[in-house]
């Protein structure tokens, strides 16, 4: 799968500590504990373009 594509039920996130981008399971409206697979930080933010798509 290309970097820009994502599986259904998943979204792309960016770590605000180490800056890495990755894909994680995501359900609209569900608050889940997330962590960066690289640095294990919880400062994980859903990418802006993802938000724009889902409204």
């Amino acid at each position: 799968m290309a970097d820009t594509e994502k599986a259904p039920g998943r979204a792309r996130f960016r770590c605000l500590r180490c800056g890495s981008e990755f894909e994680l399971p995501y359900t609209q409206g569900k608050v889940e504990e997330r962590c960066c697979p690289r640095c294990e930080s919880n400062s994980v933010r859903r990418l802006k373009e993802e938000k724009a798509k889902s409204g």
Partner: protein
Amino acid sequence: MADVGRHPNIELLTLAEVTGISGYVGNFTVKVHQRARFVDEKECTACGDCVAVCPQYRPDEFNSGLVQRRAIYQPFPQAIPAAYVLNMADCLGRNPIACGKCAQACEKHCINLDAEDRDLEFEVGTVVVATGMEPFDPLGMTEYGYGRHADVITAMEFERLASSGGPTGGEIVRFSDGRRPKSIAFIQCVGSRCEGRGLSYCGNICCMNTIKDALVIKDHWPDIDVKVFYIDLRAFGKGFEEMLKRSRRLGVKYIRGIPGEIEKATGNGALALHVENTETSKLETHEADLVVLATGVQPRAEARALQQLLSLQLHPEGFLLEAHPKLRPVDAPARGMYYAGCAEGPKDIKESVTQASAAAGRAVRLMSLGEITAEPYIVTVDPDRCKACGVCLRVCPYKAFEWEKGSPARPIEALCAGCGTCAAECRFDAITPHLFGDDQLLAQIEAALAERPQDKAVVFACNWCSYAAGDTAGVSRFQYPANQVLIRTMCSGRVSEKFILRAFELGAPVVLVSGCHFADCHYIDANRHTQQRVEKLWDRLESLGIRPERLQLEWISSAQGQRFQKTMAELEKLRAAVTAAEIADTRRILGEQKKPARKKTDG
């Protein structure tokens, strides 16, 4: 059960379901809908005359549908009260007219076909939730052929067959031909530990139940060949390993591997089980006359309504979440509610009895005091500031507010646990948590950043986990930078947006909000609100031109001293990367935000 029925202080309501519950510890009002029994339970002697004449047959639920019962029946032989019940849905019905044969046959005139359901309401001080579990339905796991092969049955069906009070009087027979099997295969973990297709967790009771069943078979019919197919055997607990060894001594064979397919064997009417024996790495085929599926256990579907009524939290596996897995394992997070048995998680009879005794003890201890001690951190609401928006009630994990549209919210002190989430979410500053009020926390922030703010990082740490993690790091001699200012709150949910913005306004280069991991939150789910708030604030900071990276969020448990150390070290790196110009810019932006908007004038 008979003791419960006879106890003068226990009122047993059968055929009843809770339809509503309100109030709080010591003052619950419970609404119950009780279906009509149609039989006078005080007069009925369970003589059985009514059953003999009833023309309606239905599958007997207690015997897993292996036999039939009548429309009027006793649910099971030891049922309390020991009276029959008429299931009107199974009966010929009252409309247009019931057959009435049962009523005619009853010499004591115990049957009243005109009985009505009733709604009850009563006050209670505490609530114990003991809604149990239900076995996993293996129909979807087609490789085992349950429902396709008559001689593939579940452990629950086997239980009824092996019971002396069961439909065969304790004789184990094959459903296909009624003869006693010469070989029986048990398959473990059917539906358990099977993420995606079944239940992700271990059923806890299945291994020992199978070993017990194997021993019963070997005790009664030593010539029956018994094989158990397993992933791994979990025989933990007092005396359990000895039971396993005893079963091996009696000739029970254990094969490590789960059959991938069950089909009819050719010629002899047996079933063929194809399995990879993971001890020998060889594909094997075993034959058995009867296959028993050790199905997993799952939360009762009907319990979901009660969970919602009581505002209880669920574990990801669907069982009810306890207040603390080690220190308060029988308490619900909300005060005055307790769990007993499998509603809280899969467990065996001994564990269920232990938990039920503990729950009863906890409830009695609480009620015998006649009063409760509240935490000093509870909140007060300023009725002049409250705009009755209802946000406090929506975000409160304990629903510790009385609120009606148009009237100021009123906190219920007995319910409030003092997380402060309501105060952080209140847009009108109407809520003040004792000891952690806005003034007190803002004073701490201002004092911390009074001198050389550019050299400091502000860390909001929850009392139970991340602040305690700092202690763990300290006692473990894990070094971390000394220029970080820890501000303790009871819960990360208390960290209001205004505290973070105030810290940035005063020149803090970075701010960290830290709390418990989601599963460890000491206030049910208050830290979910923390995360939502921080996510919104990242957006807002970005829209203001402030780098969101300067606001960090971390979940650190009290045992994670090293994680605390690592987080602080990383925070220091982030702090060092923030320039003086960036800090000055942030102060200017946030300062401008505070200025009142200039009125537009014509011309």
